[in-house]
């Protein structure tokens, strides 16, 4: 059924899958379609886990896809004059290809637990640096006032313009006013949904100064695409100076910071 030529053509098409697949991943970093720059302490661990899984799955991908190609090439009915092998399976093989992936997957599962715990479970013991309240379609920020405590009358209110000090633990208290949002800092390898009715802690330590994107990553309505903020990572001195400027500005514009944002308090 069919000529040898068609067998060659179709097996090569299946060979193109691993070839072009690997090529895509090889070219991607070169054309800058790759992990964005990481400026966080824990990001290192996430990225290396990504590379580790990429290598692991890459090997399996190449091995299985090339095997598929090779079998198609070799056992094409137009080429292979021997009868098909009459075999119903192999107990040994089944055991091997159950145990080996099981062990690998289990190892992977255990191996990554610590990183997860660092990013999501071992919260630094400190007062929140800032409260982020998501709402359609902006990030409302609330810094402690000069008294250093959040939730008092002199709190500082800002929108979309997050500043944090570099090389220090930062603890964000994340809330939502209306619908789900997700606080996504690509360069800090942070993502956390903001859920109405919940107060969720998010922490990180930035390792470099600079300005980066804050993206909303959970569908929150028609304006979801434009729910954009910026995070400025700066030295402690710059940060303090910035805070000072902001306090002064707020006091100048609204002598009594009686919040229209009363909701942010509960």
């Amino acid at each position, binding site marked *: 059924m069919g000529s040898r030529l068609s067998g060659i053509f179709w097996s090569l098409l299946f060979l193109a*899958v691993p070839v072009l697949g690997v090529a895509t991943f090889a070219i991607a970093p070169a054309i800058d379609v790759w992990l964005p720059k990481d400026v966080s302490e824990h990001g290192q661990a996430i990225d290396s886990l990504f590379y580790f899984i990429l290598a692991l799955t890459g090997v399996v991908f190449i091995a299985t896809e090339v095997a598929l190609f090779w079998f198609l090439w070799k056992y094409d009915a137009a080429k292979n004059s021997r009868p098909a092998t009459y075999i119903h399976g192999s107990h040994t093989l*089944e055991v091997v290809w159950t145990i080996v992936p099981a062990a690998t997957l289990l190892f992977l599962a255990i191996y990554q637990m610590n990183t997860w715990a660092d990013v999501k479970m071992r919260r630094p013991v400190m007062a929140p640096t800032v409260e982020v309240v998501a709402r359609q379609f902006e990030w409302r920020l609330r810094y402690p006032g000069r008294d250093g405590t959040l939730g008092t009358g002199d709190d500082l209110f800002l929108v979309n313009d997050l500043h944090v000090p570099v090389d220090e633990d930062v603890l964000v208290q994340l809330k939502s006013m209306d619908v789900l949002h997700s606080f996504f800092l690509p360069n800090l390898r942070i993502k956390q949904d903001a859920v109405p009715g919940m107060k*969720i802690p998010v922490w990180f330590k930035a390792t470099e100064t600079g300005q980066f994107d804050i993206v909303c990553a959970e569908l929150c309505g028609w304006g979801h695409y434009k729910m954009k903020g910026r995070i400025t990572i700066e030295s402690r001195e710059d940060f303090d100076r910035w805070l000072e400027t902001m306090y002064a500005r707020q006091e100048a514009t609204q002598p009594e910071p009686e919040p229209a944002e009363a909701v942010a308090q509960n």
Partner: protein
Amino acid sequence: MSLATTSPTLTQPTATGLGRPARKPRPIAEFLSTYVFSKDHKVIGLQFLFSTLVWFLIGGLLALAVRWQIAWPWSDVPVLGKLFAQQGGQMAPEFYTMLFTMHATVMIFLVIIPILAGAFGNFLIPLMIGADDMAFPTLNMLSYWFMWPAFFAFGASFFVEGGAASSGWTSYPTLSTNVASSPGAGWGQTLWLIGLTMVGVSSMLGSVNYMTTIILMRAPGMTMFRLPMTIWAMFITAILQAFALPVLTAAGFMQLADRTLGTGFFSPEGNIVNNAMQATGGGQPLLWQHLFWFYSHPAVYIMILPAMGMVSDIMTTFARKPLFGYRPMVYSIAGIAGLGFIVWGHHMFISGMNPALGITFMVSTMMIALPSAVKTFNWLGTVWGGKIQFTTAMLFALSFVSMFIIGGLSGIFMAATPVDIFIHDTYFIVAHFHYVLFAGTAMGVWAGIYYWFPKMFGRTMNEFWGKAHFFLTFVFMNGTFFTMHILGAVGFPRRLADAYHYETFHHLQPLNAFMTWCAIGMVASQIIFAVNFFWSMFFGPVAGRNPWNANTLEWTAPSPPGHGNFDFQPVVYRGPYEYSVPGMEKDHLMQTDPPNAAALAAAGAAH
């Protein structure tokens, strides 16, 4: 291509149900009872097939509109733009939100689930187990007719005020429960919930029927471990449906109550939407996510297991080899189904759910990759040492395996919780589920259509155009979806109408334009399929009973089978995969071939 060589030697034809008592011809009533309100599983199967293919087209066009906006945001949309006349032909962001919501909804609930269980399940189950029909033909008819309220609900929702639902196919509250939160959260969302419930009723009626039929109506000699993989997969899928669906239905009613009766299952106290305080509260948005994924994770397997079964059968036929590891294949399907109930939390790693719980879901998710791996190795074992015939059906089946490898492996990235922090809700996820659902299941569906077409319509599809269809679909599909992995590596978020104003993503437009061109090519290639399908239905070469020289029971029935299916009582003597038995003249031994003949042939060769 061989002739219809099957000889129903054992018993004489009984012509079950072929003749009807003579009565006056009433053409309209006749037509209605044969083609519309039919209780024949084959007609119902084809009704499902045609309806879902129409929705497949609609879903595909919705996808193109979505891709248009991603590639060229805010530029005039061809055709559709004029149709909806929005802002001089360009798309409004709420319209975009509605488009991807309805694209996914249509594809999942009106295409993939009903085409697998409804079309193939209905058509194949009685034929492959040697029954004359389903256990409950009326229930079966109803399962199709319950799809129509769903078609109407989803279809009509495009035309109500505010447009169709626009809170994603996952319909997360409080975006979906609060009417003020988005335009589509009005009537559109209510109709969405009604439609979903109807699809659920339809699936439930189907699954009860499939389970009963497979348990009770197998032909003599058809033990459970002689069932073809397609039937095993349908059986386990039906069980999954039956256990998971009630949860979704209940959750759907709760959401409906939140929206219409003022309950607050999913809304917390003190919520303020659009500057208006919500009246009710005390609920939990995460509750919906738990309930939804408790159904929808098993549902992703409902959306692939039948395809896995069909592909296994097709691959053995065209490799002319027994299935490698039949029992492991069955056990791994069962394993997937069992584990499928305890992994739903992997959709919620960063949802705000307790991170400690995330660890347990991570471990179970890692483990569910195992049966998938076992299946893949056994498929490779099946082609190894075979005599492979590159038919269109075989090419689609092989591509299922090749593509499922990609989708399964990308699952491991997302199962790794720390990595998922970064890639959750990015195009990496979109790549993953299109590899399993489109590159996997849809390719499996095409394999099934090319393979069983002769049984459905008595004619074969054109192989040349079938292969052209395969080649173009395969190439364009990978062009569209493979690139999504690297987009996801940048963190490119899904569901954004325009992401290029972000510094991180501003350089990704050319790549997205490339993907959109590929998507257009992919949809355009389906014209070849549509023409081939309808042309072959009427003018294709007439097929005998068993055009592929396959072993399973459906190939002993006439093509197409009449009412009652078999013109003799099939008796089963062996498993479905006895290909290339040594010492036999034929390279296939059908399940119904009497053993004495087989033994004689084998003995003859041995001497």
